């Protein structure tokens, strides 16, 4: 513990840079996956192509990607944007599938009914399909968030500062407390992000909450009946 108290300032700095590296890929992943996922939900061909590409991208080893990205982008090898770019690729790769599933989960009846009462294509997308895809999109982005927060640590291996520094440094100097602090901080950030996302979901998707509680009520009722 002594190590923690004497290094609080450094830990806090790493927490901040860790967050700074985590947030952009999550946002980029979410935003880019929306049009891609929508496209995949509307065309079988697009779905199989996009999901295959996503699958392939996700299998690229993160360390290799971090080394290749500066070559592609022409950035300096130590630029934080490399990590952001690489993690954005992973985020999109995971999120495209969720997003495709999310838009597929909107029933054709509802889509058709919206058209029949006079929503234009764009109005229907923003006012009907996007909000109704919300619950599945939310589930997807929560996975992306956790995965991104933990993957940021890999950047430390090539020298981009994050909480991963506590792992590399802790191993090099044999300070177990440092490694444990690193793990705890990463877990805390992941948990806080998840809470924030779940809270935003509750706020933006009130109808989903009532539908879910109604389903639970119905399940309870049916178990009572079967008993």
């Amino acid at each position, binding site marked *: 513990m002594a190590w923690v108290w004497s290094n609080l300032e450094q830990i806090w700095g790493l927490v901040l840079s860790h967050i700074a590296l985590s947030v952009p890929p999550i946002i980029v992943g979410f935003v880019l996956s929306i049009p891609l996922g929508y496209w995949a939900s509307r065309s079988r061909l697009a779905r199989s192509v996009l999901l295959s590409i996503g699958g392939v991208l996700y299998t690229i080893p993160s360390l290799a990607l971090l080394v290749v990205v500066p070559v592609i982008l022409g950035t300096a090898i130590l630029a934080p944007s490399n990590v952001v770019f690489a993690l954005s690729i992973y985020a999109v790769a995971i999120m495209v599938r969720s997003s495709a599933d999310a838009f597929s989960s909107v029933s054709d*009846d*509802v889509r*058709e*009914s*919206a*058209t*029949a*009462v*006079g*929503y*234009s294509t764009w*109005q229907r997308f923003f006012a*009907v399909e996007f*909000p*109704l895809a*919300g619950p599945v999109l939310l589930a997807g982005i929560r996975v992306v968030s956790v995965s991104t927060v933990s993957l940021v640590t890999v950047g430390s291996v090539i020298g981009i500062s994050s909480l991963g520094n506590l792992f590399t440094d802790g191993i090099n100097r044999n300070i177990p407390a440092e490694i444990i602090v690193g793990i705890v901080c990463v877990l805390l950030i992941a948990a806080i992000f998840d809470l924030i996302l779940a809270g935003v979901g509750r706020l933006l*998707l009130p*109808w*989903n909450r*009532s*539908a879910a509680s*109604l389903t639970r009520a119905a399940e309870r009722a049916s178990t009572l009946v079967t008993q």
Partner: protein
Amino acid sequence: MIEFRNVTKRFPDGTLAVEDFSLVIPSRKTTVFVGSSGSGKTTLLRMVNRMVDPTSGTIEIDGEDTAALNPVALRRRIGYVMQNSGLLPHLTVIDNAATVPVLNGVPKNEARADALRMLDTVGLDRSLAERYPSQLSGGQQQRVGVARGLAADPNILLMDEPFGAVDPIVRAELQVELLRLQRELGKTVVFVTHDIDEAFLLGDQVVIFEQGGRVAQIGSPTEILSDPATDFVAHFIGAERGKRALSIRSTDRGEILVDSEGRAAGLLVDSVVGAQYDAGPKSRSVSNKTSQAGDA
């Protein structure tokens, strides 16, 4: 007035849904399309608000060719009620009912206030206004669907098997309610169903379809029942059986009407008393024991 002129619809997969269909749908009356599934009746309904475009032929509303109109603008001035209500699950009852006025640019508060009054019109309690559709019963959802269809005060109301998915008791209630609404509002209603009883109950004009969008007979319920055009129609309306094949049987206490099974179906009433029923379009001078017509 809605006029179909030589309308044909062939789907991309080659299915011929409707062939050379012509019909005038009079204003402020209820026209019912009835037929089994695959008879093209829903396809025709959806051509009115351009959810489906015909392969050939034209559809005119008050003399205006719909092909020349913007489909989105057209849909906003035509009410549409579908099976399973088609309500938007993420909007509350009141926002669902106010959908079309809001799309038309009416300020939200104003549209909501109007929608509240519309809930009264369709017989829904205002306390349901803030609920979500999933928290309502099937019959209540259907009423919200009707409220939404009527909210922008359209001249035309399209109803695609709106009561197909609710239980028979609620269906009977909704049918009676629709008759009341129609008496009050006088919309041009086009109603699709596969239930001939529903067609006869609600329709001023009934169009019976055979497979492939061919019209078997067009007429008022009285005309069709008294003079079925073909064997298909006679069979479809069940003229020779069940509660439609009524006959008079004399008993000690007077004459009663019995159905083809010999069960008592009603009484032959005095024609003076019967005249009050003639106010309704589907009057039969029979007080039927199933008595859906009794409300007319």
